[in-house]
């Protein structure tokens, strides 16, 4: 019997990670790992990872697909520019985040000379330039293109603003020697979000340009294609899981919470329309596939920020330690960001860090209800996405996959009756990405949806049902 296999490569900032996948069974056959050598020659890390994989498999098969994603060299660093902060500037931000970018700047209104110089100095990989609805404001996007041209911006620019002046905007930039692409407006009409074309344009530039700029193409003979930045692969995995394929039904609306060392990412797939009667939605609609990145909530690089957000006394009480002992643990973590807990105290500490990161990241991602008083009585107004009816919440990231308390941590994402204005999931199934395979599912989705779904099925573990209420009285160290 012939087997079908795929090799999935993740060029990360610390490791080069390989997964050999059996496409028919939807199983990870073996995993291999090498150091990340993007800064020198990417092939060194790739060789080491392949040797590791070969050892584990006892020889390498002739892979049918070899697909790569990358979060190396800081990921895909982007800056967005729009007009009104809550409108086209926000739409541009959403487009960039959904494309898996690491947002290193977001600007609104007219750029000053200093703004433009600061943007150039930050050396983004791609700049997304929006502004104006179609037929709307023309002046600002032209002005901003002029300022960016004068500041000798070096990276490719994607123009996704008012279509009436898209060509003029592009001309200003290309006359200054800037690589420019025109995409559809991120907000063609007032309060109509259209982020997918810009996301596709970002991905194309990533494949054409960034892969080369980061030195990943030096290993080009080893894979068929670098398809996307790693967070975009997770997003594609999420979409496939939600929607299913032609032959396999999906899970429906879902959320992925990824608790990392530096950030906590949340992806939600679903329209997020009001679920309660009489609720009026207000403001910019949010994307069907929405990603947020919380740069102040991370298990290692931002452990202190989490403790400070909770308050040192409250946090100490939660983990049943003195503030001094908490401080000591924080210093230990900061001195060794690769640290993995090796005793009960540290496990409890990590669980509390992760729970608080998840609760805060989810509260920021989810929409909220505000009661406004009108002359005819109170009116419930919804901002953002209503995620209360989400079917499934999936957790990923080291502390959830390898930690001992995944249900406690993931339950922190749920609806809390004491903060009922926050539209978080009420009764979802909780799952853990035990196989650490979500990015692989997203990569495979591009070539074989059913194999990707089989892989997902085999790598997701369902947790016992648990509601927010039942976790409330539970001692954190239980």
């Amino acid at each position, binding site marked *: 019997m012939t087997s079908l296999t795929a090799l999935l490569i993740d060029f990360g900032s610390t490791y080069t990670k390989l997964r050999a996948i059996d496409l028919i069974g939807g199983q990870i056959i073996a995993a291999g790992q090498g150091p990340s050598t993007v800064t020198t020659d990417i092939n060194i890390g790739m060789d080491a990872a392949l040797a590791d994989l070969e050892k584990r498999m006892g020889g390498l098969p002739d892979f049918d697909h070899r697909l790569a994603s990358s979060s190396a060299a800081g990921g895909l660093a982007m800056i967005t520019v729009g007009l009104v902060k809550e409108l086209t500037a926000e739409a541009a931000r959403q487009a960039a985040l959904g494309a898996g970018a690491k947002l290193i700047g977001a600007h609104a209104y007219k750029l000053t000379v200093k703004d433009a110089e600061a943007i150039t100095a930050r050396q983004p990989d791609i700049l997304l330039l929006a502004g104006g609805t179609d*037929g709307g404001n023309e002046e600002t996007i032209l002005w901003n293109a002029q300022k960016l041209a004068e500041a000798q911006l070096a990276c490719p620019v994607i123009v996704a603003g008012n279509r009436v002046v898209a060509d003029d905007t592009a001309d200003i930039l290309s006359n200054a020697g800037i690589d420019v692409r025109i995409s559809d407006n991120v907000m063609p009409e007032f309060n109509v979000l259209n982020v997918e074309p810009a996301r596709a344009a970002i991905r194309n530039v990533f494949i054409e340009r960034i892969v080369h700029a980061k030195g990943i193409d030096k290993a080009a003979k080893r894979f068929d294609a670098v398809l996307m930045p790693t967070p975009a692969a997770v997003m594609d995995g999420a979409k496939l899981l939600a929607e299913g394929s032609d032959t396999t039904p999906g899970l429906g609306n879902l959320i992925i919470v990824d608790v990392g060392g530096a950030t906590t990412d949340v992806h939600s797939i679903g329209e997020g329309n009001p679920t309660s009667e009489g609720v009026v939605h207000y403001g910019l609609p949010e994307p069907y596939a929405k990603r947020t990145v919380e740069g102040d909530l991370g298990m290692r690089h931002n452990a202190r920020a989490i403790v400070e957000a909770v308050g040192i006394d409250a946090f100490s009480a939660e983990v049943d330690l003195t503030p001094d002992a908490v401080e000591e643990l924080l210093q230990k973590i900061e001195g060794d960001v690769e640290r993995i807990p090796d005793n009960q105290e540290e496990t409890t500490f990590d669980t509390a860090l992760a729970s608080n990161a998840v609760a805060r990241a989810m509260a920021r991602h989810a929409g909220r209800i505000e009661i406004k008083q009108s002359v005819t009585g109170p009116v419930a107004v919804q901002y953002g996405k209503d995620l209360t009816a989400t079917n499934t919440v999936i957790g990923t990231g080291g502390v959830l996959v390898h930690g001992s308390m995944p249900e406690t941590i993931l339950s922190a994402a749920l609806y809390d009756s004491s903060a009922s204005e926050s539209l978080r999931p009420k009764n979802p199934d909780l799952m853990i990405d035990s196989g650490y395979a979500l990015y692989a599912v997203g990569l495979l989705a591009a070539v074989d949806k059913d194999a990707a779904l089989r892989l997902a099925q085999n790598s997701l573990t369902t947790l016992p049902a648990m509601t927010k209420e039942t976790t409330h009285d539970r001692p954190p160290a239980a």
Partner: protein
Amino acid sequence: MPLTSDQRAKVTLVTGVIGADTHIVGNRILSMALEKEGFNVITLGALTPSEDFIKAAIETAADAILVSSLYGQGELDCRGFRDMCVEAGLEDIVLYVGGNLVVGKQSWDEVEQRFVDMGFNRAFPPGTRTPDVVTLLDQDFATKASGAAA
């Protein structure tokens, strides 16, 4: 003289009900009528804070903002509206306001004058018919429309 539909299509109008006011019906009728007459209408609906009118007008390069207020608090809600527009770079935007703008029996002339003093180009009393608004819009944008057509 009425504008042609081509000329009207070049005129972008932002409509909405200001403040904590949920009375959407009159504003919706007006918005639909203006759209049917060929104007480019951006509808914000009920419960719209004044700053959101301005944000929408910036992004869409609107020519006029038509503010509705039906619950008697219009004078409070519209205070400083023109100043906010000027602050946001919309010095030349045309501002209309209409509805039940004040509570109690007050002479319309006085009410109108008060809103004109606040920087609104026109104020409309209760019971205004949509064709009257269209006529005045045509009149106010005749210069702009003919300029754009030339």
